């Protein structure tokens, strides 16, 4: 059972993440006029947002400590925020400023926060072996920290998935592999790319527990991850979880999504936040005014982070030559 305070906290975190993604979306497009120009504006480049996938990040990270590691894929904001990465430094990175996590060198797909053991990569599935190595370091040092690798359902068809699972299973390392199944890999639907309906079935190929969580339900996700984290912390080795979620927006900003057809309207209707809100209201855990307050707080934090980013200095051109080598 998830206690009531925690349930409200889940809601708060999901609202916070959504407020973040909406604000980034707004600012991403703000100065790309008249039409979308990928390289223009205050936030240039590719932008992969995670609206709809908040339950995964929140349910997952509620089980993690700062000393646990998490490797995220190209769609990382929800995970970074839930893992406790500083919103200001992360936003500044997305705006390419010197105050950013990577001093403007990384960008939105390359957010590194060593204090929170958070990292990400734009190459599909390639964060998975890295998490295995973090878990290896933890276990060699005798700590009970765990490492989490998050990847999309499309990533489960990459060789790196297989190698990472086998290695973690073989060495019984404290790794939790999370597949975020949002039904799509860019324009390719899951059922034309993946030979099994349930990636958790692939756990059998490594002799590790596997579980698929339907419903995009933050509490069910929290519970399933909790079982996996407990197992990993106590030396029980890795777990593979596939979490069915929803990609409410395009693959990246600017994606016209013609390929989605009717499914798009369904996806938009499957927004997990109002659904969870309704539940909490029904359970008498949230009032209208609390809801408004949560949203207001989230908005304030997000806008402050964006204001911080915008007010931060741009790098000096010569900074480009720094940090090639330590």
């Amino acid at each position, binding site marked *: 059972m998830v206690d009531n305070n925690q349930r409200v906290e889940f809601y708060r975190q999901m609202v916070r993440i959504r407020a973040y993604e909406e604000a980034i979306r707004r600012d991403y497009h703000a100065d790309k006029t008249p*039409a*979308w*120009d*990928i*390289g*223009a504006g205050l936030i*240039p*480049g*590719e932008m992969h947002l995670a609206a709809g996938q908040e339950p995964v990040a929140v349910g997952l990270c509620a089980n993690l400590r700062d000393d646990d590691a998490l490797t995220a894929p190209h769609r990382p904001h929800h995970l970074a925020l839930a893992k406790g990465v500083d919103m200001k430094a992360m936003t500044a*990175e997305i705006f*390419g*400023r010197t105050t950013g996590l*990577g001093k*403007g*060198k*990384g*960008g*939105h*797909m*390359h957010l590194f926060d060593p204090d929170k053991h958070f990292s990400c*990569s*734009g*190459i*599909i*599935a*390639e964060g998975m072996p890295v998490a295995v190595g973090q878990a290896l370091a933890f276990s060699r040092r005798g700590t009970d920290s765990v490492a989490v690798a998050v990847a999309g359902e*499309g*990533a489960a*068809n*990459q*060789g*790196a998935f297989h190698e990472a699972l086998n290695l973690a299973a073989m060495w019984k390392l404290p790794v939790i592999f999370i597949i975020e199944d949002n039904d799509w*890999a*860019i*324009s*390719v639907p899951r059922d*034309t*790319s*993946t030979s099994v309906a349930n990636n958790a079935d692939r756990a059998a190929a490594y002799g590790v527990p596997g579980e698929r969580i339907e419903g995009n339900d933050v509490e069910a996700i929290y519970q399933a991850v909790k079982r996996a984290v407990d197992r990993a912390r106590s030396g029980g080795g890795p777990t593979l979880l596939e979490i069915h979620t929803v990609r409410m927006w395009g693959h990246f900003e*600017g994606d016209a999504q*013609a*390929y989605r057809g009717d499914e798009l309207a369904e996806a938009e209707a499957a927004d997990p936040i109002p659904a969870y809100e309704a539940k909490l209201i029904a359970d008498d855990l949230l009032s209208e005014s609390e809801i408004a307050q949560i949203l207001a707080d989230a908005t304030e934090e997000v806008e402050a982070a964006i204001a911080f980013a915008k007010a931060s200095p*741009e*790098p*000096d*051109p*010569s*900074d*480009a*030559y720094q940090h*090639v080598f330590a």
Partner: protein
Amino acid sequence: MTVIDASPGTRRLTTAKAISEGIAQEMRTNSEVFVMGEDVGPYGGIFGSTTGLFDEFGATRILDTPISETGFIGAGIGAAVEGMRPVVELMFVDFFGVCMDQIYNHMAKIHYESGGNVKVPMVLMMATGGGYSDGAQHSQCLWATFAHMPGLKVVAPSNPHDAKGLMISAIRDDNPVIFMFHKGVMGLPWMAKNPRSIGPVPEEEYTVPIGKAAIAHEGTDVTVVSVSLSVQHCLDVAEKLAGDISVEVVDLRTIAPLDRDTVLASVAKTGRLVIVDEDYKSFGMSGEIAATIAEVDPMLLRAPIKRVAYPDIPIPYARVLEYEALPTRDKIEAAIRDLVS
């Protein structure tokens, strides 16, 4: 001598459209040609290289794949070995690291290892290049990495005309061809572009020879050798400087095999050489061109060569950092002026 026919009334296409038209025309005449890759189907290729093909040829000839580059590039090789002519797309060159073994240990070498008994007639196309803040893992050129590997032909057109002609040549070639299109030359509606990314393209099928550079702009004071998007910048600079400095722009078009004769002839004429390369500077294309001169006759050079290449740094995200590193028009112009003065 430039092969671009710019006579008025000629139909103009983006490079993306020119590529997909070339593929479509070959597919109509040769049932062994098919296309495979991520998002090449209904989406039409992330950078538009397969736009319209799915509608015309359907799912049996335009295959969306899982995110399994080793798997589907290997499958392309297997199909090619059996006599088909796959056109396979690796979405970004930056992803080569997950599938390079298929590319250079198999696609490139099977013909040689088999003593010429097996052919691998396959096109592997991929997007290259930066300039739009896509960061260190999505902005590279890396052509030298492929050109360094024997058994691969590597082409990188700078304009729609050459793109179509090189694609048709690549499909008809009995060897594996790496076809690199810089995102900046594709003429995409959603990316800032040089007008040169849209240009005259004949309707009919035609070929542009693999292994032949073009003199994209004739000149006598200085030779500027480049490839792909940077050629567009070089042409802009050459036109700007015309009357003041006479710049000869060599568009390599093919990186491997390198058309050394065209480079040497131009340098013999001008005595000065600037190499412009968006790929990393060291151990790459610019070095190879320098060596070509140095091993034939360094005395051809009236002055040291200049390299306007990507410095040896990972590609930074922030625009100001990325443009510090990119081979821009300003840097090209400065290098030319420096050399000629």
